[in-house]
């Protein structure tokens, strides 16, 4: 199990009624990699995220997180995952600390351990001074950082982020992208769903999703062949259309 990839997806398909959302999706993400799940709106990224977080049951496909099969051993798989959903999931009238303590308790962390992890995660995200502020008082960028800090509390091996920069201004977007790349360098595996190609870096892995189908997969620098990532993405989308 220690040799297992951080994330394995194999043969995954899903329909929303008659509308196909995912078609035979397969890819793996090795430990400690930053993998971008890149695709335009409607590509199936959020559906895939729902499967990866156990909100949609993977059948007949396979999803395994650090070797734990999501269908057979959901709890062990979920324990390895930290999630930042596309839609913010916050109690706006409670403090940063209360929000984080709630999440820590859901993951079975006792108060003392939770408080230590909260301090650690907030410091990592440059948010330690905000711990007693109500969420409603924070701007969009800080709320997102709080959600990333929250996703790290139980020390997951895999961090899933679904369009985490949507709705943020350019500086906040850039800061969060940099923070999460830094997390990957420190050993956390990241799956970052986005429709913005400029958030990718040459050393990242990318899975290009279009209309529920994996169009390309590999290291960014290899795939783009010297072009800017946005140009490569635009050409790929034009060819797919």
């Amino acid at each position, binding site marked *: 199990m220690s040799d297992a990839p951080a994330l394995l997806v194999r043969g995954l398909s899903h329909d929303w009624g008659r509308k196909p959302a995912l078609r035979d999706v397969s890819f793996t993400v090795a430990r400690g990699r930053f993998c971008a799940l890149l695709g335009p709106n409607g590509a199936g990224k959020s559906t895939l995220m729902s499967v990866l977080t156990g909100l949609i049951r993977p059948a007949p496909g396979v999803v395994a997180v650090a070797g734990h099969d999501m269908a057979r051993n959901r*709890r062990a798989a979920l324990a390895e995952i930290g999630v930042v959903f596309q839609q913010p999931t916050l109690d706006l009238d409670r403090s940063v600390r209360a929000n984080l303590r709630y999440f820590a*308790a859901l993951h*079975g962390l006792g108060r003392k351990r939770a408080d230590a992890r909260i301090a650690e995660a907030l410091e990592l995200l440059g948010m330690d001074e905000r711990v007693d502020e109500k969420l409603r008082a924070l701007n969009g960028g800080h709320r997102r950082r709080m959600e990333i800090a929250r996703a790290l509390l139980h020390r997951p091996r895999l961090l899933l982020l679904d369009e985490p920069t949507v709705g943020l201004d350019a500086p906040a977007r850039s800061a969060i992208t940099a923070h999460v790349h830094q997390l990957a360098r420190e050993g956390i595996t990241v799956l970052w769903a986005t429709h913005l190609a400029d958030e990718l870096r040459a050393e990242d892995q990318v899975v290009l999703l279009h209309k529920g189908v994996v169009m390309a997969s590999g290291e960014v620098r290899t795939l783009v062949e010297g072009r800017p990532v946005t140009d490569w993405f635009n050409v790929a989308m034009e060819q797919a259309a």
Partner: protein
Amino acid sequence: MSALSAASAIATRELARFVTQRERFLAALVRPLVWLFIFAAGFRAALGLSIIAPYKTYISYETYILPGLCAMILLFSGMQSSLSLVHDRENGAMRLMLTAPLPRWFMLGAKLLAGALVGLVQVAAFLVIAALFGLRVPATGYATALPALLLSALMLGALGLLLSARIKQLENFAGVMNFVIFPMFFCSSALYPIWKMQESSPLLAKLCEINPFTHAVELVRFAFYGQLNLEALGWTALATVVFFVAALRGYEPARTRSS
């Protein structure tokens, strides 16, 4: 241990939310008090009560409706919890809970229990006010009614949970509530004994008899006098299980499908 801390966090969040919503608490108290002090005052003359179990003497109308009003508080509280569940689903908090590494039945059960505790707090406040105005049950009755109130709260909360699994949008909630709260409350023994209903309409009396809310009311009524109404207990427990299992099915993750 980890499951316990998760359950305790869910309960704390629910209570904290309730405490910060003062209007909700006031509304929960005012509603039954209006029934008790205004409706009952006008209605008692129109309704003659005979001696019925568990009462040993003639009782005032206010005494008769006390258990029904406690159950009404729990009914509204259960529906309020389900409203907050729909809200949680819309704002994503539900997803956060369902992606925690604990069984889904446990998380939803903890949410149900938390909602039931909030309902019990409201009933306790109502009973204190009623007692201050001289409307009391035997002192031990408060203790013996507690498990009955808890089970009733769980049953009505489970019904709310089931509704929240089916109602997809907050906007649709008010309409659905009207179809649940009012028929459940009025078609029960909360405000009038079923034999009274029988005089007017045997069909309605039959509906009252099969209404789980009637059984919750009767369970509480007998418990206030230290008596166990086995039939009411059985039906209330059965309804709790059926509603909860159906709600769990509603919250089951969708399955991926290959075409």
